[in-house]
């Protein structure tokens, strides 16, 4: 018995020495520089080399992740913990967040109910294909075609097609990647800063008369918005109203004025200025208010007239004491709460 043990210990020892030494030598001799991140990810990966990810082994996946070909959560075996670590290695950092967030917006409201159809279309059910056939079935050459190419291309599923055949973008989900903008054959979608609340949802540069003929909600270039805007932020250019977001303060006056409801706001109600006890009565706000909605005596707490206030926030920005807050009636943007979901069922 001792004999057997001895022989086996010796031969195993010999074998491993041989192989160990060989490997050690080889790893020195054949060392190759690689992207350190590949090694790091390799460390993190389970190393089962099971191939379940579709890549040839763990190092194959590591390479693919570094090259950006595979997502950080590609390893099924490793699960979310590994994915988290890989994400750290890859430095999927918050640098993008730092910039002002942009989201995609649909600049057409001519759905099935509003737009006129010049013809029936039959064929490949994608916007681009339809656009290539006589410009699509809608009479307005600028109208959304409504087959949802944008929805298909959105990587985060932020776009859904409404009953009315128009895309609806969930601005919370949207990452501002702009893929939909590129995809849309009619340039109906554009990226703009998330803080812009008011939009002209029409791009039709035809004469107002022509636009009115083809769409109930198209911009007819009546210039009423131009006249009502207190900040000179909206102008009719080439038969369609365009907002200068440098100047726009989301006061929604144009929204209310627009006869065709072409201009929309994200919120049904505008914000209102409310002055709190920090107010020292410096009167700066009253002086700056474009609609004279703020009144009050020097050194006394001021009051904002809720009726008059248009929600432009100038006062809040000017207030040296941060005594003015802009508040909006409680409003749930996407209506998404758990209770709603339960009700919907």
């Amino acid at each position, binding site marked *: 018995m001792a004999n057997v043990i001895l022989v086996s210990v010796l031969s195993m020892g010999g074998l491993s020495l041989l192989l160990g030494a060989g490997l050690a030598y080889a790893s020195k001799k054949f060392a190759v520089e690689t992207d350190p991140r590949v090694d790091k990810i390799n460390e993190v990966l389970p190393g089962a080399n099971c*191939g379940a990810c579709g890549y040839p082994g763990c190092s*194959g996946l590591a390479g693919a992740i570094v090259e950006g070909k595979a997502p950080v959560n590609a390893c099924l075996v490793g699960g979310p913990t590994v994915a988290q670590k890989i994400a750290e290695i890859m430095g999927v950092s918050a640098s993008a967040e730092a910039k002002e967030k942009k989201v995609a917006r649909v600049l057409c409201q001519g759905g099935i109910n509003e737009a006129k159809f010049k013809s029936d279309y039959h064929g490949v059910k994608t916007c681009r294909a339809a656009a290539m056939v006589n410009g699509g079935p809608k009479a307005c050459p600028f109208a959304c075609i409504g087959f949802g190419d944008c929805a298909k291309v959105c990587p985060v599923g932020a776009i859904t097609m409404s009953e009315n055949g128009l895309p609806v973008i969930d601005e919370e989900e949207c990452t501002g990647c702009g893929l939909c903008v590129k995809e849309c054959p009619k340039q109906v979608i554009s990226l703009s800063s998330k803080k812009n609340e008011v939009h002209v949802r029409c791009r039709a540069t035809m004469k107002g008369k022509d636009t009115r003929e083809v769409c109930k909600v198209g911009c007819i270039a009546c210039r009423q918005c131009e006249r009502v805007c207190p900040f000179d932020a909206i102008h009719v250019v080439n038969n369609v109203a365009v907002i200068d977001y440098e100047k726009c303060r989301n006061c929604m006056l144009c929204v209310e004025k627009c006869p065709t409801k072409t201009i929309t706001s994200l919120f049904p109600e505008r914000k209102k200025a409310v002055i709190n006890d920090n107010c020292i009565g410096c009167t700066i706000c009253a002086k700056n208010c474009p609609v004279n909605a703020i009144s009050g005596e020097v050194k006394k707490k001021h009051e904002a007239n809720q009726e008059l206030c248009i929600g432009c926030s100038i006062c809040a920005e000017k207030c040296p004491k941060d005594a003015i807050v802009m508040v909006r009636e409680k409003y749930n943007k996407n209506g998404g709460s758990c209770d709603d979901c339960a009700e919907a069922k």
Partner: protein
Amino acid sequence: MKELFFIIAGSVLVNNFVLSRFLGECPFLGVSRKLETAISMGIATTFVLTMTSVATYFIQFYILEPFGLSRFLQIVSFILVIASLVQLVEMVILKTSPALYRALGIYLPLITTNCAVLGLALLIAIKRYNLIQSIAFGIGAGLGFTLAMALMAGIREEMEFADVPEALQGAAIVLITAGLLSMAFLGFSGLIPM
């Protein structure tokens, strides 16, 4: 000569490693998405299998058996040798030919923990093949693996356009397809005396 042909043809068609011996299923399911990848993987595996057949032949018949260690050191020594060998080859290829490495080398680590390799080693020991037969067996097993991989990858590429029910997408449909493929391969049963 004829016998070697039978060994090769037998392990490609009749007792295909993947489709009837159940060896090497993991890469078969995982790396058969694209035809090019599948074939590269197949070639790399064939290479390793052939190498393994030589190595295990010597270990089995020149170390283990003479010393009477075969019954209990077989697994450990085979797997150790295979793993080291693969790693060695990987390093050598990486250094000497990065192009070859990109084409084949990346598959090598995956192959270490592939049952097909250890299975081949054990089968060689069981069947008591001589050196030439062992090599033929290794090549045949590799070719059979490659064939199965290639067929599956071809079908899977075509399946990109198929409307597979959601529940079956992924591994499920691949398994069922493998089942149908292995059913077709049953036609070869009894073909060559193995």
